């Protein structure tokens, strides 16, 4: 993935990301990771709003995909902890996430993620996570 930038093949291989309708756009150093506003992802049909878990899954995936671009990343990083703060109710529409690596250490990486829908400066959720970079 790192060498070819072939995220589509990576996404196609992961069944749950297919269920969520996850896609990737490369923007220079950054990756924009999208999730479709599918009816099947609704958690609260009254509002309606996407299920918070799907937003968490999108943000975790955005972090992993970003780490895979690092030259020193060997294998798929394993999530140790993930903390999501939900800021606004997510509407049933295309949702975007962008991950920033805060620290890429020898064994552990720290990543921050923002998710939004229409306007990037009105995030629907923010997250931070720790990843194990290689298993021993």
């Amino acid at each position, binding site marked *: 993935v790192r060498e070819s930038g072939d995220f589509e093949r990576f996404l196609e291989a*992961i069944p749950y990301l297919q269920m969520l309708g996850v896609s990737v756009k490369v923007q220079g150093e950054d990756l924009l990771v999208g999730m479709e506003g599918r009816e099947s*992802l609704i958690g609260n049909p009254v*509002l309606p709003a996407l*299920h*918070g878990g799907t937003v968490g899954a999108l943000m975790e995936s955005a972090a992993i995909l970003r780490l895979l671009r690092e030259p020193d990343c060997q294998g798929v990083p394993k999530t140790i902890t993930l903390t999501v703060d939900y800021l606004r*109710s997510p509407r049933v529409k295309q949702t975007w996430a962008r991950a920033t690596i805060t620290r890429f250490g020898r064994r552990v990486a720290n990543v921050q993620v923002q998710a939004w829908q229409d306007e990037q400066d009105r995030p629907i959720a923010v997250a931070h996570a720790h990843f194990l970079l290689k298993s021993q």
Partner: protein
Amino acid sequence: VGPIEKLMRKLMSVASPHMRELGMEFLDLKDGVAVARIPYKHELVGDPVTGVLHGGVVTTLLDSTGGAAVFSRLKAPAPIATLDLRIDYLRGSTPNEPLYSRVECYKITRQVGFTRGIAHNGDESDPVASMSGTFMLNTTAVRVSGKEGGR
């Protein structure tokens, strides 16, 4: 079974499309403790080599179970929303085994519900993940068309 539990079961089993898509069902819901299960399905896999479920499935299960645990302690049905959720991934979920959750709402105030819980494959002493989450109570369900409600 009280009115809240009845409504909750109905909401969960019928009205939440994503929980339905995951095949999630509630096994128990009373006194602030919710227990749920997701059957193992190929569509939920995150690692095609090992067959381990995607972390997002664990997140969704624990978020929903936490919400249910809070809901079961409300005196009257009211909308709630996740404020924050922390998941610690302790090990990969065992392939071909169902994923269970057990979340307790250990404190509820007028505005906030506090929860903690685990996900496991049938043995609570060998958890897959642990969670802690907070939920806002009485969140407004009103939304002006095309716009968000009050900030």
